[in-house]
């Protein structure tokens, strides 16, 4: 099966007064139709910028974007703004992190849903309204015939995120990008939203790209995982690869900082020491090396001087790290 969404050598940088911010630096990945890709990383790793670059939501007056974004055989970056706009909301849709602020506070949710339908399809108001009610019912909003006339402030956070999902899916897009869809929600609601997205994906066969820093979400939903750090992919593979056979010290750190039910309660969680680097002034060698606890094991101080390549350790499992196989094995055992 060929890739439905394929990103090749994506670079996104923002010229600012302080220097050029390299938000995404040579990122490549692909997702097959109907599959789920998770992009994992902490704040500032470039994952949201990647999503917005795919959606064409970055203002190209302020962002330099190069590379290719192939969606179903079309290069989105080579198309005009208007052509991409026509795909947006129709072939590809997006859900955002904060449902509290992602809906317009002054318009009824029904009107906002109908707007999404009518911009892409010539249908009557009453038909668009029917579709809006159907979409609300599909995402599990009770009494959608009445709720459709509510304003966003009359709904809870979980309900608003359901509305956002309904709005994203109302035109049956083939690609759905979810940018931290559960981060702003209560834990119980998080599980409901995750379940809802899985259910809808199973029903519609939508390709899903989920962006998160929450490895719990990833384990539940993803087929493939790309771990991002400082604008580049540092490890990518199947969900099992990343969970059970992680090799890059950053991934190890991420996993060690997540609480697990099977771990000893007296053990503390291990945070990754330090902060992500400034994207204006990146370290010369491996971008993670300043925070890496294993860099001393690589000879000649290569971690500080030489950028590692993203190389396959096993087929389909790519790692950007100077450690050799035995050292990676040892690192994994020391952290888990």
């Amino acid at each position, binding site marked *: 099966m060929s890739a439905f969404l394929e990103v090749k050598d994506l670079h996104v940088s923002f010229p600012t007064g302080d220097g050029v911010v390299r938000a995404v630096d040579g990122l490549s990945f692909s997702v097959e139709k109907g599959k789920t890709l998770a992009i994992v990383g902490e704040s500032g790793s470039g994952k949201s910028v990647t999503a917005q670059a795919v*959606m064409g*939501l970055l203002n190209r007056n302020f962002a330099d974007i190069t590379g290719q974004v192939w969606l179903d055989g079309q290069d989105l970056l080579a198309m005009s703004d208007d052509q991409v*706009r*026509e*795909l*947006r*909301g*129709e072939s590809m*849709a*997006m859900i*955002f992190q*904060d449902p509290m*602020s*992602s*809906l*317009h*506070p*002054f318009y009824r949710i029904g009107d906002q849903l109908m*707007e*999404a339908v009518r*911009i*892409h399809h010539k249908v009557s108001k009453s038909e668009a309204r029917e579709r809006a009610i159907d979409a609300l019912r599909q995402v599990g909003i009770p009494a959608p015939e009445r709720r459709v006339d509510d*304003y966003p*402030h009359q709904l809870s956070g979980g309900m608003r995120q359901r509305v*956002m999902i309904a*709005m*994203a899916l109302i035109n049956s897009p083939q690609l759905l990008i979810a940018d931290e869809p559960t981060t702003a929600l209560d834990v119980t609601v998080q599980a409901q939203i995750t379940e809802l997205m899985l259910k809808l994906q199973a029903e519609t066969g939508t390709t899903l790209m989920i962006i998160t820093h929450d490895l719990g979400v990833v384990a539940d939903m993803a087929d493939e995982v790309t771990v991002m750090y400082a604008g580049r992919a540092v490890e990518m593979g199947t969900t099992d690869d990343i969970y059970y056979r992680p090799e890059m010290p950053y991934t190890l750190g991420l996993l060690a900082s997540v609480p697990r039910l099977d771990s000893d309660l007296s053990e503390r969680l291990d945070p990754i020491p330090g902060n992500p680097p400034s994207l204006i002034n990146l370290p010369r060698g491996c971008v993670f090396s300043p925070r890496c606890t294993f860099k001393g094991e690589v000879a000649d101080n290569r971690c500080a001087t030489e950028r590692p390549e993203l190389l396959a350790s096993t087929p389909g499992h790519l790692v950007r790290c100077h450690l050799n196989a035995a050292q990676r094995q040892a690192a994994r055992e020391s952290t888990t």
Partner: protein
Amino acid sequence: MGGYVVRRVLIMLLLLLLLSFTVFVLFSLLPADVARLTCGKICTPETIEANRIRLGLDKSVIEQYWIFLQGLVLGRTYGQGPGAIVCNAPCLGYSFTRQEPVLKLILDRLPATLFLALGAFVLFLIGGVALGVYSALRRGRWQDKTVMGISLIGYSLPSFFIGLVVIYFVIIRWQLLPFPSYVNPWVDPLQFLQTMILPWLVLAVLYAAFYTRLTRSQMLETLNDDYIRTARAKGLPESVVIRKHALRAGLTPIVTAAGLDFAGLLGGAIILETIFSLPGLGSLAVSAVLSPDLPILVGVTLITASFIIIANLVVDLLYAVIDPRVRLA
């Protein structure tokens, strides 16, 4: 919503009552002796005293205020016998120097002020908001800097300066327009427009500067909001995103300012009315100060302040129309 409106109107009426009392007391404290001012050329102590009684000035301030309120509702008669002057309800007072009820004087002057305010309002609101949006969309580029620079000039120049410069060049030097002479628009629409166009433009430039800056900052704020990204993610054309989503969300402070500015203009653009010899409330107030004619001053002050209070109410009610979250509060 209905209860809210009733409550707000009641509060407004109370406020108007309080305001009229304050204005009344303030003016009664002035050192000017109204009885003397209205006594005419042949002035003896007896006529002054007679005047004092006729005007009710021998009574306490509270009593005078009560009579004033009665006059508003029932009308009022000054003096007795054949020389008595009747001021029909609602009586805002009587100008003895002009021999006319204050309300009639104000109503005569209101159209000119109203037309001036209305025309300028439309111009500066449309112009200011349009330029503000334009500027926000080109933030940091030369178009933005030009608009902001010009608006700073418009913001800082005094109206009498712009007014006089415009009169000098347009009317005197280039003779593009005749000298301003106000007529009722139904009598001579052309002359009306020729008279009003310059004061409209001058006021528009002065006020548009503020609205350009306000709109720009509002737009820059709302354009960064999450729901704008949502609107774009839906595939809406940028023009719809800006008009329907961003501008609508940033409208509230613009409506507030516009409502109060409009009310302020209804109180008379004193300087411009004087410069362009428009027979409006502003020039009425100026001549009342110069004569001095206290009943007119009290009347104009009351009417002007009432406009502001009413505008406040209208603005608050408009909030509820713009922002559904206000409706429940």
